Each structure stands twice: as C-alpha cells, then as structure tokens.
C-alpha cells in the first residue's frame, strides 16, 4: 500500500533512542560489564611481512593473573586449497587469517596471539612475554610497489596472467564497443588519478564482552553492523553452532561499513571458552588505525570521448584498488558505479584487486564508488571546460533516466538523477558570486543500494500499544524511521510505538546494516507485519460486532464499520481490542521475514565552494550543497544527517586524510591528532536539498540514502580547487604541502 496524506511519515519526530543518548544511558559495547569479567588483549605483529616460524606462549601462561592464551591453532582454519567459503561478500579463508595470522603476518598490527587476564595491565604484560620467531620478509605497501615484476608476493598460490602476482582478481562491466566509441568521438580526454586509503573514523573503537558457559552456550555483546554477521563469523571461526550463540547488538558508535566484519569477537569467545570467565576486549584508537578498515587507496585511469555538442560516446575506466593484506577490495563499486549516472553507448570499466602489506580493507560508505567517481567526475569537468559547456548542463545532456541500460547490468526504472541536476542548477548556491581565490565545483554520484534479508515482529501489548522488533543495528536513526512508518500505518501516536533491535535468538535472520538497506528493507517487513496486525484487528472487531471482516475498516487507530450500511457501532480502538484479546482469540501480533527486492540505486549531485589560502596552501570549503534523490524522506532530519555526514567524510578524504608510513613499513600517524579528520572548525554549514522521487518498488517509496552522499564529494572539491586556482590535482589528499608545491611550481609544469 502506498501511504498518502501522511501524518507521521516525513515528520521530524524525536528518535526513540534519543533520551538514552543525550543522558549517557545508552549502552555501547564498551559500557557493559559482567561479574567475574576478565580482560583480553591482542599481541600484534610489528612487521609488515614476516613468516611466523614459532610462537611460544609458556612464559605468558605462567604470569599470575593470566587465564588463557590463544593463537591461530585455536581458530578454525579455512584452508586455501579447499576453495572459497563465502559469508556474504567475505571469504572465510581470509577472515580466519585476518583475525589471527597463521603462517605469515601480513601487516604491522596483524594479530598473532591473544591473552585474557584479570586486569588489562596483566594482559598487556603477558603479551610481551609471548615469544614469536619471525622470518622478516620484504614488503610492499603502495600499489606501484606491489605491482613491480620483482615485488614480494603476499599470497604465493596466486597467479595473474600465469605469473605469481599481487593482483588477486579482475572484474569488468561492458557495454557496446569502446574501440568504435572512441572512433566516433571528436574529443577524448584521458587522465590518471590516485587516492589514499582513508579510515572510516568511527569514534567508538571496536569492543565486545563475551561469556561462554560450560555447556558452550555463548552470549556476545558487541558493537557491529550486524549481530547475525557476528554470530555467523564467530560460529565459523570457533566451531560453536549458531544456535548456541546469542549475539546481542549493543548501541553502535559509528561504523560506516567498518563494522561489517569481526576482529575481536572470535578471539574473545575462544578466550572465554578456555578461561571459563566472561572476557571483555576493547581496542585502542591506535589498534583501530593499525589493524582495522580502512578503504582502499587507488590508482585509476579514465578516458572519456565525446562529440563537440557534449554527447558522450565512449568511456573507459581502469581502477586498481588496494585490498590490503587479503583479497576483497571494493572494485565492484568502482567499476559499477562510476559511469552509472550517464547514458553512454560504449563503456568498458575494469577493476583490479591488489594485495599489499597493509591492513585488510573493510567496507566504507558506498565502497569503491567515491574512488571511481573522483576520477570520472574530474574528467567530466575537464570535458565541460574544453567544450565550453556548463558542467551541470553537460551532465544533464548525458544523464541516465528511466529505461537507460547501465553498463553494470540493470535497466533503470523511474530514477531521480535528472531532478538532482535540475535542482542543483536552480539552487541559489549555483548562481552565488565568488570572491578572489574562491572556486566552485560540481560532481555527481551513484550507489547501487541493497535489499536482502530482513525480519520484523509487530506485537500489540496488553495495554494497546505497540512493540516493533527488527534485526538491524540502528546506525543513523532507523528506529525513528520505523516508528514514523508504523504510526502512520496503525494510525496511532508515534509515542505509543517502541522500536527494539532484537538479538540473534529473538528475531529472525536480518542481514547487515549496510548497503543503505536498513530502512528500505526493514520498513518493507514492518509494513507487511503491520498489515497482518490490522487484518487481525479488523477480524476481531467484526467478530465482536458479528459482521463480515470486509465490512470493517481500520482508521485513526480504531476499527470502524466501512459504512452505515455495515451497522452502527462505536469504534473499537487498539486499546479496546487489546483488552478484549484474551477472550477473542489471543495475543495480537505478526512477524514477517523476507528477502527484499527492489532497492533501486540512488543519485546525488553536489555543489562545493572553496577558498584557497595561497600562503599556507590550505583549502577551505566555504559553502556546500548536497542534492540527492532520496525516494521518500521518512524522517527528514536523519536523511539530512546522512547527507551531511557523507559530505564531511568526503571533505576529509579530499583535503587531509592519509596514512603516513615510516621506513619500516609502519603507520606513523595512528591517532586523531596526526590522522586529521575534519572537525567542526574545518567545515561550513552543509546544506541539503532533498529531491523525492519515490521508489516505485517500495510501499513508502523508500530508497537508501546513506552512501550516495560520500560518492561525489572528492570530485566536487577537486573541481572547485581547479576553478579557484586554474590548476588541477590528480592525487588526493589536496593537503597543504601538496597545494603549496603546486602553487610554487613554475606555471608550465603546474599540477602535472
């Protein structure tokens, strides 16, 4: 059913979890404790690449207070030879080696052992007593180094083009014939770009508390983007069946994709099992920076051919993405999303997955897409400049619309990309005057969005209120969105609805909070469950009135006869029917489980103004407007929050964030002081313009909104910097030293 004349959908209600979060009561994973609890710590490799010849834990085990020590011998091995064992997009062969190094340590920070002791200090002391005999190997961190003919090979079994290689895979999206396409072109622009790995930067470090009973029954409190993922991975890596693992989702302090895999949970479970004590593990910020996330660094080449009137006829992109220690960089996002906003007859988009000696990448907000969009949208800016066409007009001329076949496969249904371009063109920001050393840039972006498995229960309480249980950790206000939708459907006040995130043993399987899928998928199951509840309520009223259920309608939170002909009865409210439930057939509630389909992709177009301090080389973003087709803004404040958050992260990626490596192959800036994410004082107000083109495949028109906002940002900033200085940057971040270098260079070689 499509909800019209909305009372609650679209309202800026107060989020159900809000009071807990403004009073400090909300329980994040690191806030939990248990009687008898002890502390776990991880011993990590100091080397970027080393063979582990032996590990001796005897001295550590003898230290008073130490209760358990685990190494890779305790973790279930998924052998390389037996082939891939997939859990979602993760191959457990890599996951088991990422949580604990087996034969080789592949990055500084790679876990090699873990200890549980009565205090954190004793656990840390015990780690120092573990003797690891390493054979230090040559290492490669940057893509170029990993691709050299004589590069050290991380995974010796792997071959590419018949030779041992760090290229772990290649994918492509193809449409038409690019050779023909470039022949048809009157202008061709080809450029190469690099981006640096950046961390998701969630403020909450990874944490968990785990208890394993003598019979193997396991309880996990952890911060993650999916309690079911935590249960499945922990089960696979420890051998405990899923039915014995209750994974309770703590409040999550940011994830951005980085908490879609496990690091600590299998180790804490093994330590808890060995010691018989609940084990708590909390990462330090330094551990987060050395051993988790980030997203890939990249090396891309994009070539675009067009007619003189601006019609794009051919595009070729090749994207090399760093996977870190194990295969699995987000090449699919780079390959599939980069050209998706445009209707181009001939496209070849290729991605290469490159391993090197740095931490395994994790998902980060539209994984891969911002990397590809940075290259494509910067080339489009040059094309517009060369053809003397307004950059938004160039995009509009080539924009994908309903019926366009994207190179990655789908034919688009009704989409709102054109509307975002038009809204950007008409926005006062686009016509606002610019001052000296100021510049304006635009860029667009696309993300697939995801559907997938979701479960929900809608139960009517005995006093006539509502409890909704879903299975997705709420990372950006999804409980508020669900409450708005449920209030709308049931016709009752929003405050009468309590939305709970269930644990793995109390709600049906629900896939990750990721892919911008949560509100899309969970509102679909909640809608169906609420519809079932309404059917029950109508049947109960019909029974009481002794009329046909078809003659009863549900309106404003009560059952009414559909017309006077059906009979004259006083409405029966939710509270009335709840009270009568025991005598009229029992409890009222419904649960629905679906593999949801129809999550259509999302598009955004951004306008960015910068001002460059030419003395210090500092680029400041002084005005920013993010326009996005959001389908239906169920709770506009949290939609805007997603847009603003994505933009802030993109500005960091564009201007500041990068890991600095020292000569020993170790990260030299593993903290927020030297790894510089944008803070309040670095940013202007970030304006949002929401375009609502409802998703025709969703009951409320919902589209995912969380990831698109990061996709266009780096290109928008880079194009603005070019507009301000007349010089282009082909590598990120555009940090003060790099900007100064370009400004100080003789004019002819600038930015080459």
């Amino acid at each position: 059913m499509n909800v019209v004349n909305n009372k609650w959908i679209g309202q800026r209600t107060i989020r159900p979890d809000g009071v807990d979060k403004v009073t400090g009561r909300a329980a994040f994973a690191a806030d939990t404790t248990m009687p008898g609890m002890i502390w776990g710590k991880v011993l990590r490799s100091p080397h970027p690449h080393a063979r582990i010849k032996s590990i001796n834990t005897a001295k550590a085990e003898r230290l008073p207070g130490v209760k358990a020590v685990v190494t890779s011998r305790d973790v279930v091995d998924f052998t390389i030879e037996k082939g891939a064992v997939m859990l979602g997009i993760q191959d457990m062969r890599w996951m088991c080696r990422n949580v604990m190094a087996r034969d080789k340590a592949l990055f500084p920070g790679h876990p090699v052992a873990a200890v549980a002791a009565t205090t954190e200090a004793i656990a840390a002391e015990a780690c120092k007593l573990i003797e690891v005999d390493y054979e230090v190997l040559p290492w490669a961190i940057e893509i170029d180094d990993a691709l050299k003919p004589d590069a050290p090979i991380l995974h010796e079994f792997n071959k590419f083009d018949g030779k041992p290689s760090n290229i772990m895979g290649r994918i492509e999206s193809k449409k038409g014939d690019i050779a023909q396409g470039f022949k048809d072109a009157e202008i061709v622009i080809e450029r190469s770009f690099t981006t640096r790995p950046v961390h998701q930067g969630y403020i909450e470090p990874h944490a968990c508390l785990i208890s394993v009973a003598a019979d193997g029954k396991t309880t996990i409190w952890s911060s993650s983007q999916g309690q079911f993922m935590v249960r499945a991975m922990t089960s696979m890596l420890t051998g405990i069946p899923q039915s014995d693992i209750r994974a309770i989702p703590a409040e999550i302090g940011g994830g951005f994709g980085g908490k879609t895999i496990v690091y600590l949970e299998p180790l804490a479970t093994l330590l808890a099992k060995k010691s018989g004590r609940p084990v708590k593990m909390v990462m330090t910020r330094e551990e987060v920076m050395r051993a988790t996330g980030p997203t890939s660094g990249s090396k891309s080449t994009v070539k675009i051919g067009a007619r003189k009137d601006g019609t794009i006829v051919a595009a070729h992109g090749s994207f090399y993405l760093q996977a870190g220690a194990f295969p699995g960089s987000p090449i699919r996002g780079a390959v599939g999303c980069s050209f998706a906003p445009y209707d181009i007859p001939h496209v070849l988009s290729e991605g290469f997955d490159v391993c090197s000696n740095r931490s395994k990448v994790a998902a980060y907000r539209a994984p891969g897409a911002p990397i590809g969009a940075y290259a494509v949208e910067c080339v489009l800016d040059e094309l517009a400049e060369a053809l003397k066409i307004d950059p938004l007009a160039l995009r509009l001329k080539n924009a994908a619309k309903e019926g366009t076949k994207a190179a990655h496969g789908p034919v688009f249904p009704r989409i709102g990309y054109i509307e975002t371009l038009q809204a950007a063109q008409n926005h006062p920001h686009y016509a606002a005057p610019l001052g000296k050393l100021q510049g304006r840039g635009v860029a667009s972006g696309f993300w697939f969005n995801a559907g997938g498995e979701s479960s929900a229960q809608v139960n009517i309480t005995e006093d006539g209120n509502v409890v909704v249980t879903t299975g997705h950790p709420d990372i950006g206000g999804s409980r508020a969105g669900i409450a708005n939708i449920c209030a709308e459907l049931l016709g009752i006040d929003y405050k009468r609805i309590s939305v709970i995130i269930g644990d793995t043993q109390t709600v049906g399987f629900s896939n990750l909070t990721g892919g911008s899928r949560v509100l899309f998928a969970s509102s679909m199951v909640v809608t169906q469950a609420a519809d079932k509840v309404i059917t029950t309520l109508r049947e109960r009223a019909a029974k009481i009135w002794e009329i046909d259920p078809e003659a009863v309608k549900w309106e404003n939170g009560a059952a009414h006869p559909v017309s006077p002909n059906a009979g004259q009865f006083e409405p029966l409210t939710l509270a009335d029917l709840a009270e009568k439930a025991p005598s009229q057939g029992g409890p009222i509630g419904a649960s629905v489980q679906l593999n949801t389909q129809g999550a259509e992709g999302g598009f955004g177009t951004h306008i960015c103004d910068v001002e460059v301090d030419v003395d210090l080389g500092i680029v400041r973003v002084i005005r920013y407007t993010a326009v996005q087709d959001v389908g239906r803004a169920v709770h506009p404040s949290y939609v805007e929050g997603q847009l603003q958050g994505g933009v802030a992260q993109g500005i960091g990626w564009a201007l500041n964030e990068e890991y600095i490596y020292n000569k020993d192959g170790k990260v030299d800036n593993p903290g927020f002081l030297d790894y510089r994410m944008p803070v309040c004082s670095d940013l202007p107000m970030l304006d949002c313009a929401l375009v609502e083109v409802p998703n025709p495949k969703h009951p409320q028109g919902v589209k995912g909104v969380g990831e698109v906002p990061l996709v266009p940002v780096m290109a928008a900033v880079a194009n603005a910097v070019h507009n301000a200085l007349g010089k282009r940057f082909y590598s990120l971040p555009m940090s003060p030293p790099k900007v100064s270098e370009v400004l100080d260079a003789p004019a002819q070689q600038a930015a080459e």
Partner: protein
Amino acid sequence: MPKLHVTTSVNGEPVEFLCEPYETMLDALRGQLGLTGSKEGCASGDCGACSITLDGRLVCSCLMLAAEAEGHEIRTIEGMARGEKLHPLQQKFLEHAALQCGICTSGMLVASEALLARNSNPTEEEVRF
C-alpha cells in the same frame, strides 16, 4: 606502588575511590564509579567524547589523572538532567536531531554547557572552535 585514595565530588555527590597512580579520570569514571556516559574515542584529547568539567572548566577526562580529582568538583553527562527533566540543551539536541550514533553526544553536550556557562551568546565561530 599502593593505590591512591581520592576524595572528590561527582555531579554534586561526595565520592571516594582508590586508583592506580597512572589511572585516568575517564577510567575511574567508567570503571569503578560506573559512569559510562563519558566515552573513550581516542585517549589523546582529540575527539572530546570523554569531556567532563573540573570545577566548571571543560577537560578531556582521558588526559586527566584520576588522582587529580582530589578536592575538586567533577561534573559529567550523568549530572546534566534534573531527575526526569532534561537540561534545555539535551531537549534541543533531541528536537534538532543533533545526534546520529550518539557516541560523542555526551561530550558535545558537556562541552556546549561549558561554553554557554562562560559565553551565553556565542557566535557560530565560537561554537565551532
């Protein structure tokens, strides 16, 4: 080295505790005092999620030793609401959806209150810095 005995006041209540000489105020609050509203995001004073006030002055509790609380007045997020009545800042944070995941919300609220206590009408720039 023996533990240190600290007598202090937290959110207006007298408190005594024992701590290690190296223990931070944040660890003491989150550990034995059971006040987990202050969070550790970085342990280097950069993120502000652990913000508290010491005699009314805004400090990062991760950079303060627990022993330094001796004889001073500490206030944390847990002391901001009056019983069931939220502080106006807490209410406004809710109304304006000024939180997403909420991990640093405590710190932002404590910092906002400290700012307003010394400057009742700050400019946008003063808020951002």
